[in-house]
């Protein structure tokens, strides 16, 4: 997709980035000790910390990924909102206060507080690093997606900008500046998402999203000799036919140009429906609807084919209320765009065909996660759903970059209160994601090549000003989250591994310096991964990070807090088993097979989310190894 770049967008973007950098300069002068670098000196107010929690947590996955997923797959995207928020319940009721009491700077400190074990230090620092890197990938991918329409720059430059800025922020001032960056962007994101939702409700529904919206061509056809398609209209000529899964596509020549159409057969009537397509030539050239990108023949999509209000079909509505909005979507009919890929001679063709879907199906689970027999759900489809919901529920309270925020407040009471502020702010935002996602689905804004841009592109229909602000905030969102992740990663390397595990003698200033060098290294690594994973939905990728965190970290945290027989070796083994099993399943999953260029159905493990296998495996390991190593505990007094 080619986007018009606006000067206003660039000015607002530069203002937000300037604000973030200004804050970093300001706090850099105050960051002298390890405690201020890793934990902001433990002096952040609970309300500020609560919104900073929200700023940290509402990452690119939440704003870009969830909105995009809802825009393409309806309620299944909202499952992420429900799961992400539910995970905070585990954090609040079980983890927040004890962890605040046990830890100093990092998640490893808390896990190791009872044992002083080298095994735990090593396992937990590796786990922190891996989970943070898994979480970093989608943030960088999201940043790259954002700069394309915002600044008109290629994806990889966006990744590079974010990486460089964050390295600068973290390497200058650590947790204090990270906290305030997250606080500002968390607050702005919630305020402007609310404004965007008000725009959506005020705009209501219409069958033609805007005056420039593409009018999709439809051609009647018939079958000749039982196999060949024939078109009565002499303006069209059939050039080729291809199958992709259960779909048939036909290439038609019209007015000297070639277009792909989807073959729709209903009650013996054949209709050919125009689709969007890209063609990748062996030479590396890519055509959009048969022409180079610069000719702008590729267009934004997403509309309603039927609007039903109070049982009557209408062509548009006026402003609607929040519940009325959901009810009308549920009763109407949406045109979604489904992706299919096939070879046409030497060319690789990707087609996005119109997929008319009843609003009833959009408003319940099932478009991604097949659950009913009618939809052809298998055992593994159901396991995928269960695995996702389990990983999201248990993942939040195991994310190291979230856990370290408990060390930035002064007391356990403050830790608890800041968690509640976070839950309220995040919960409110997640309700808005349903409106923003559905709004993008029906307002003709979708870029079929990038689901991640649905939210910001929706804002663009309501004015370039709103788009610019929302995009700049989304960019700051990435900055805030990536900063938190890099602080956690640098803590794992410099504090947990070099200082505690290797026991390298360092002064307080030396520890800060080691943390900054580690931040630069992790930042560079994140930039490379962000470029490699271009094109994947960021919320899906974050779902994987949650699964790794829930498998590697949560069993250790909960058993440490609630089972006295837990041993250091039990914790360390559980972390390693959780990491290896979850990453192993991900690497052999259907989605990764598709990424490798292989056939997804050939994947040896038919699960996309590993939680259902890897979490129980980590728990069993912890219990068994702890029971086998009870003598390690017999010499220690855990009464405190």
């Amino acid at each position, binding site marked *: 997709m080619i986007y018009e770049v606006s000067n206003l967008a660039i000015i607002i973007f530069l203002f937000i980035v300037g604000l973030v950098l200004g804050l970093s300069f300001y706090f850099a002068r105050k960051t002298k000790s390890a405690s201020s670098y890793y934990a902001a*000196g433990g002096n952040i107010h609970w309300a500020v910390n609560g919104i900073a929690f929200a700023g940290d947590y509402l990452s690119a996955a939440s704003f870009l990924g969830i909105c995009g997923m809802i825009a393409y797959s309806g309620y299944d995207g909202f499952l992420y909102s429900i799961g992400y928020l539910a995970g905070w*319940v585990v954090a609040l009721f*079980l983890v927040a206060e004890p962890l*605040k009491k046990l*830890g100093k700077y990092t998640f490893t400190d808390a896990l190791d507080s009872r044992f002083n074990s080298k095994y735990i230090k090593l396992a937990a620092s590796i786990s922190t690093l891996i989970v943070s890197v898994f979480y970093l990938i989608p943030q960088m991918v999201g940043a790259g997606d954002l700069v394309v329409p915002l600044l008109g720059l290629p994806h990889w430059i966006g990744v590079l900008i974010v990486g460089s800025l964050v390295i600068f922020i973290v390497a200058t001032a650590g947790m204090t500046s990270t906290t305030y960056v997250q606080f500002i962007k968390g607050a702005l994101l919630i305020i402007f998402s609310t404004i965007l939702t008000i725009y959506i409700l005020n705009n209501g529904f219409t069958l033609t999203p805007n005056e420039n919206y593409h009018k999709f061509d439809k051609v009647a056809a018939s079958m000749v000799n039982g196999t060949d398609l024939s078109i009565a209209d002499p303006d069209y000529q059939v050039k080729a036919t291809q199958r992709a899964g259960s779909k048939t596509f036909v290439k038609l020549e019209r007015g000297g140009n070639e277009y792909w159409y989807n073959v729709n057969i209903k009650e013996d009537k054949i209709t050919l429906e125009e689709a969007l397509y890209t063609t990748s030539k062996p030479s590396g050239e890519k055509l959009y609807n048969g022409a180079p990108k610069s000719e702008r023949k590729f267009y934004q999509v997403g509309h309603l084919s039927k609007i039903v209000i109070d049982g009557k079909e209408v062509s548009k509505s006026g402003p609607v209320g929040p519940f009325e909005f959901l009810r009308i979507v549920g009763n109407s009919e949406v045109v979604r765009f489904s992706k299919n890929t096939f070879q046409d001679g030497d060319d690789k063709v990707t087609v996005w065909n119109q997929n008319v879907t009843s609003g*009833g199906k959009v408003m*319940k*689970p099932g478009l991604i996660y097949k659950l009913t027999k009618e939809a052809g*759900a298998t055992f593994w489809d159901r396991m995928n759903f269960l695995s996702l919901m389990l990983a999201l529920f248990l993942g939040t309270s195991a994310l190291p970059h979230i856990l370290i925020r408990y060390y930035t407040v002064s007391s356990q009471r403050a830790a608890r209160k800041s968690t*509640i502020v976070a839950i309220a702010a995040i919960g409110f935002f997640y309700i808005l994601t349903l409106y923003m996602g559905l709004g993008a689905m029906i307002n003709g804004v979708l870029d079929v090549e990038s689901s991640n841009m649905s939210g910001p592109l929706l804002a663009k229909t309501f004015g370039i000003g709103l788009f610019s602000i929302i995009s700049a905030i989304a960019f700051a969102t990435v900055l805030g989250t990536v900063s938190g992740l890099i602080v956690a990663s640098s803590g794992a390397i410099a504090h947990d591994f070099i200082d505690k595990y290797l026991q390298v003698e360092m002064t307080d200033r030396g520890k800060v310096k080691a943390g900054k060098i580690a931040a630069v290294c992790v930042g560079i690594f994140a930039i490379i991964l962000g470029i490699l994973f271009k094109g994947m939905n960021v919320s899906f990728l974050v779902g994987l990070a949650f699964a790794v965190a829930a498998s590697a970290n949560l069993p250790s945290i909960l058993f440490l807090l609630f089972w006295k027989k837990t041993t250091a070796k039990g914790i360390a083994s559980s972390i390693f088993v959780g990491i290896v099993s979850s990453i192993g399943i991900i690497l052999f999953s259907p989605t990764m097979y598709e990424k490798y260029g292989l056939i997804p159905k050939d994947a040896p493990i038919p699960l996309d989310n590993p939680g259902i296998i890897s979490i129980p495996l980590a728990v069993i390991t912890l219990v068994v190894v702890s029971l086998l190593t009870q003598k390690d505990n017999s010499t220690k007094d855990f009464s405190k």
Partner: protein
Amino acid sequence: MIHEPVVETGIDKAAAAKAKFGVIMFVIYTLVYSGFVLIGLTKPEWMGLEFVGGQNLAIIYGFGLIVLAIVMGFIYNYYCTKMEDRMNKH
């Protein structure tokens, strides 16, 4: 190796009572959350049934889980604060 917090938190006599209350709240929420997952797994067609105010069960249950987390958070904080004030008074 000492892993003391950055800021001294002092002795909290209410810690055990709060932990117990937290577990109870966690179990309640987990049961409600499990209900949602269980319906999705065993009776997915129920998710599309109209429930209240023209909204289907999926919407009501999904919104309900989000709102319940917020409400339970406030209840938890209210009682924990009371416990702290009472038990740490002397």
